[in-house]
């Protein structure tokens, strides 16, 4: 994971009318990693991906993919990128094998063995017609068509959407398989945090068009902490701590979720003189939800006036 990043953007911005869909995005995707691109629906993930692939003109800002400007990607560079979209475009009258033959003509590096391995992995008959395939089978076929040209960079836009558990597992296995080549990079958007936990090295989080996180997965996980403070009497008001994401007040207990937990945070909390204070382990999903959910005290907490007798 040295050398220049596979994807890099600086100030990448796209407006639709007066509304920014992606705002001032600075992204760096190192070569050889599995990079998860997260965010709620409508946060700008697909818009970003379409700009990166040169399918949508940025309003302003710069971006490069495999070292080339995204505004002028030559076909040779596009051929080194595999792109799997949310809506799989296929000709219904073709058979699975014909789809492979058709697609292979566009790619000089087409690897028929990979294509057969992937469709075999999804249990697809080469003679089956596309129009008769289930959603999961179509996804398998599309994955095969995308992987067979041996792309240096694989871009998957919400690949798990609508897949049954078996097809879903096959997809994840295919992604793991792809990491056998250490110079291959996978960039995928997803809502499936279980997948992210299994396969991702890096994670980026878009929140309402703005990039909030871009770091190794473990760093993100470590930066969001939940602390439980127990008090012998009524807990004090929620303190003003930098990085506070959520606060939960119960009888004799204050539970805080915050990010960038450090010595200063700890001192601020100790100053509340809790009877007991402990760090509670937090799952990736909880960390993500507290990060993207409603911030601050308003989530679950009674207002101070209500809490007082």
């Amino acid at each position, binding site marked *: 994971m040295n050398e220049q990043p596979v994807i890099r953007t600086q100030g990448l911005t796209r407006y639709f009318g007066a509304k920014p869909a992606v705002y001032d995005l600075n992204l760096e995707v190192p070569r050889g990693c599995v990079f998860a691109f997260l965010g709620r629906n409508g946060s700008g993930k697909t818009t970003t991906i379409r700009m990166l692939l040169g399918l949508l003109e940025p309003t302003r800002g710069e971006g490069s993919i495999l070292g080339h400007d995204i505004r002028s990607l030559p076909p040779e560079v596009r051929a080194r990128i595999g792109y799997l979209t949310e809506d799989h475009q296929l000709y219904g009258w073709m058979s699975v094998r014909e789809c492979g033959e058709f697609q292979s003509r566009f790619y000089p590096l087409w690897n028929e063995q990979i294509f057969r391995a992937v469709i075999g992995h999804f249990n697809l008959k080469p003679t089956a017609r596309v129009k008769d395939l289930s959603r999961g089978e179509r996804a398998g076929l599309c994955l095969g068509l995308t992987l067979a040209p041996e792309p240096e960079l694989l871009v998957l836009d919400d690949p798990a959407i609508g897949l049954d558990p078996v097809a879903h597992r096959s997809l*994840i296995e295919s992604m*793991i398989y792809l*990491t056998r080549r250490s110079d291959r990079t996978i960039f995928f958007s997803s809502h499936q*945090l279980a997948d992210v*936990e299994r*396969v991702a090295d890096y994670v980026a989080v878009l929140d309402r068009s703005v990039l909030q996180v871009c770091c190794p997965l*473990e760093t993100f996980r470590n930066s969001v902490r939940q602390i439980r403070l127990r008090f012998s009497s009524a807990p004090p008001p929620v303190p003003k701590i930098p990085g506070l994401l959520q606060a939960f007040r119960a009888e004799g207990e204050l539970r805080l979720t915050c990010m960038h937990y450090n010595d200063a945070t700890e001192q601020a909390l100790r100053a509340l003189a809790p009877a007991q204070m*402990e760090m509670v*382990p937090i799952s990736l*999903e909880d960390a993500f939800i507290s990060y993207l959910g409603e911030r601050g005290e308003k989530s679950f907490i009674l207002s101070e006036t209500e809490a007082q007798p």
Partner: protein
Amino acid sequence: MSFNITISTGSNTPIYKQITDQVWLAFVTGKLAVGDQLPSVRTLAEDLVVNPNTVARAYADLMRDGLIESRAGRGVFITRKRKVFTREEGWRRLEPLIDAAIGEAMTMDFTHQELREAFEKKLGQWKHVKGGN
């Protein structure tokens, strides 16, 4: 080798930690012995369907803690390099675990005496592991 790792996503424990915990548990309960071979990083990653870097991270931790060693060209084996932590460091790691157990016990109204007895009983069960007497 009757030893099998399973991982779950969505857990409060990161996957690499689930792996290291299970290897340690298998070792202290006798399911893994010194000299036993572990699957390669790649094999375990594909078996568990997780990123190989996650397995590599787990193995690196186990290596650092002296439980496994990598023999060039042959694979990864359980070893016995004891005394990986100084006493001081050992206590630093152990203390929060003891505190957590006692804290839980107190909230469930166990008495000190009950705790002592439970601890003795447990120690008896672990006699076959190093340090038992």
